[in-house]
């Protein structure tokens, strides 16, 4: 079996590989190349070396966006995972209507980011109107709105992953702990959490990258307003690309820097949390 798998490996992998090259690898390499050029369309690029990278920090926008993105990511990663885990924990206690709740909590994840953004914009503006302000009145409203929206969308998804993890915790471990006289809290922190570490790895990774790369929700909810105070990195890249004549390459250079940041952050996170995983 193993042997024939090996023999047919190239045939099975070929379609995916082609798709991967066309849709991923080629644009990726092209993207890096374009960051060193000045261009109007991708066909007429002229090589300018590192000048695009130097221009990244000519204005404060990139740094501001980075600071805002980091703040947002920290807050939303923590809240999403805490609430996601809590929901999962509650919904594996065998209470009535568990399946209904799971479905309901998961549903927000099925709605597209743009739609969600506009719906929340209407809702939040409606509420804020009561206080005589709007979402674009102050960056703090935009920030809270984004965190709220992101939580609402991702908690259900993370909950499903945590539920799968919690269900795989062997019953005998929990039982043994109970017989040894462990309290509920001790069981949670000493048995459940170490045992669902693989789920935590995945969930942290997903929330971290999703929050860091956020674009649609940002665009639909605040579009960066007021000014560019709530623009996150992805949006800053987009506005750089189209905001000034001849700055397409700078946008591209920002995208490369952005990619490196996401890669470093998420790989570090994977390395750190994977070390904590235990075998039962």
């Amino acid at each position, binding site marked *: 079996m193993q042997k024939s798998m090996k023999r047919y490996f190239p045939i099975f992998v070929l379609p995916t590989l082609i798709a991967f090259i066309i849709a991923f690898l080629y*644009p990726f390499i092209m993207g890096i190349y374009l960051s060193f050029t000045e261009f*109007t369309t991708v066909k007429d690029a002229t090589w300018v070396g590192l000048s695009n990278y130097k221009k990244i920090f000519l204005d404060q926008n990139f740094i501001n966006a980075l600071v805002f993105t980091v703040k947002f990511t920290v807050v939303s990663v923590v809240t999403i995972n805490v609430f996601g885990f809590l929901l999962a924990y509650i919904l594996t206690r065998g209470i009535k209507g568990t399946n209904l709740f799971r479905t309901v909590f998961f549903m927000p994840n099925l709605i597209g980011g743009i739609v969600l953004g506009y719906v929340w914009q209407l809702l939040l503006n409606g509420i804020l109107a009561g206080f005589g302000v709007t979402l674009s009145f102050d960056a703090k409203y935009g920030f809270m709105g984004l965190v709220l929206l992101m939580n609402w969308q991702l908690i259900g998804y993370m909950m499903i992953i945590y539920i799968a993890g919690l269900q795989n915790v062997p019953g005998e471990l929990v039982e043994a702990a109970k017989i040894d006289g462990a309290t509920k809290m001790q069981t949670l922190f000493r048995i459940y959490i170490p045992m669902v570490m693989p789920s935590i790895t995945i969930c942290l990774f997903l929330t971290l990258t999703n929050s860091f790369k956020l674009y649609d929700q940002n665009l639909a909810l605040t579009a960066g307003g007021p*000014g560019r105070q709530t623009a996150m990195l992805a949006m800053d890249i987009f506005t750089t690309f189209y905001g000034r004549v001849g700055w397409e390459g700078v946008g591209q250079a920002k995208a490369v820097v952005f990619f490196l940041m996401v890669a470093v952050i998420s790989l570090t996170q994977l390395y750190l949390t994977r070390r904590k995983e235990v075998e039962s």
Partner: protein
Amino acid sequence: MKLKKLAVLTMAAAMTAGALAGCSSGNKTETTAGETTAAVTEASKAEEATTAGEAAAEGKGQIYYLNFKPEVADIWTELAGKYTDETGVPMKVQTAAAGTYEQTLKSEVAKKEPPTLFQINGPIGYKAWAKYCLDLKDSAIYGHLLDKDMAVTEGDGVYGIPYVVEGYGIIYNDAVMQKYFALDGAKAASMEDINNFDTLKAVAEDMQARKDEIGIEGVFASTSFAPGEDWRWQTHLANLPIYYEYKDDNVGDKDAIDFKYSDNFKNIFDLYINNSCTDPKMTGAKNVEDSMAEFALGKVAMVQNGNWGWGQVSGVEGNTVKEEDVKFLPIYTGVSGEEKQGLCIGTENFFSVNSQASEEDQQAALDFLEWLFSSETGKDYVTNKLGFIAPFDTFADNEKPVDPLAKEVDRYMSNPELYSVSWNFTSFPSQTFKDNFGASLLQYAQGGKEWSAVVDEMKADWANEKAMTK
């Protein structure tokens, strides 16, 4: 376990790579926004398929026009079919969704069959597309252009031909105004009396105070500041102080701006936000459509917009404004001698022919322009269906659009006593500049910024953006 580790790592790699691939593929492939609203009817596609063969054999070339105005997308498609019927030259029209023209053009031009006819928005747009703009100096259509100064030129070359003249000002509802003039102690007796800022201010403030008597919710419609909806202020209204400054210095562009008419800008802007149906703090949630609807429903007396806004007024369900009551008032800001000021007249729509297309295709595009602006069918479409006021000598006096705002534009333009304010915002440094200025204005309206800060930042930003895009 090892397999699992590998799986996790690959997934991680794939997802992070997506961060970059996502960004770069966006400009390469067609933008989805453009795609979804792009209108290419099946009919014209089929037409193209059958005639493309013959046309190519005759060396007629073909036309691909990337349209800027989504509101007339269907008419353009219809027009393309008609042109193919008459001449046998295949023509395809695609429309970019509102606000995505540059994006769509960028991706379309990189394709194997790029647009042969497209549009630029003025000198700044020309800078971006210079490599793709054919010199139209010898074209028949440039010969027909009434005011040669309107074209986009560089050196001896002509690279953009304006195809529509547009005007903006303060649109008012005459029925409401008459109601006010009939009141005791009205600050003016008729619209003719309102010919400078002081009168406008006195009238607007008095109307606001007596809004219940007149039956309106405010004098001016919402000063819309939702994201992407602030162009009426950061571009159109900002044109007036810049126009006067250019005029004083007798130039058409400046690397650094003094913004010396900033107080005039503040005059009218304050009047808008303080005498409106919407609290200044709430303007951040309003869009242009809201403002136009407020006007159409008779809730307000005035709204600043251009003649293209007629469709937005007449299209509102339950609108109470009568066609004959929709009129234009110039935007007065308190500049001396403004009694003679007319509307802001100009265009930011310039046709350009793709210089990198084949020669037959270029010729086909030029032939089409000639046909569009001089044949009976073409002219009929331009004035009656597209509703354009065309700036060409091929149009007789009776061949003009008949909607009330276009008629008003015409009335102001043909009044020899008035001078028109030209559109100088085509020389504004960049989109980034406009966005920043808009954000600043919003903060001022909400009470979070001093006016002096708005002015200083605007000046700094102008110089900065001009330098950055050199």
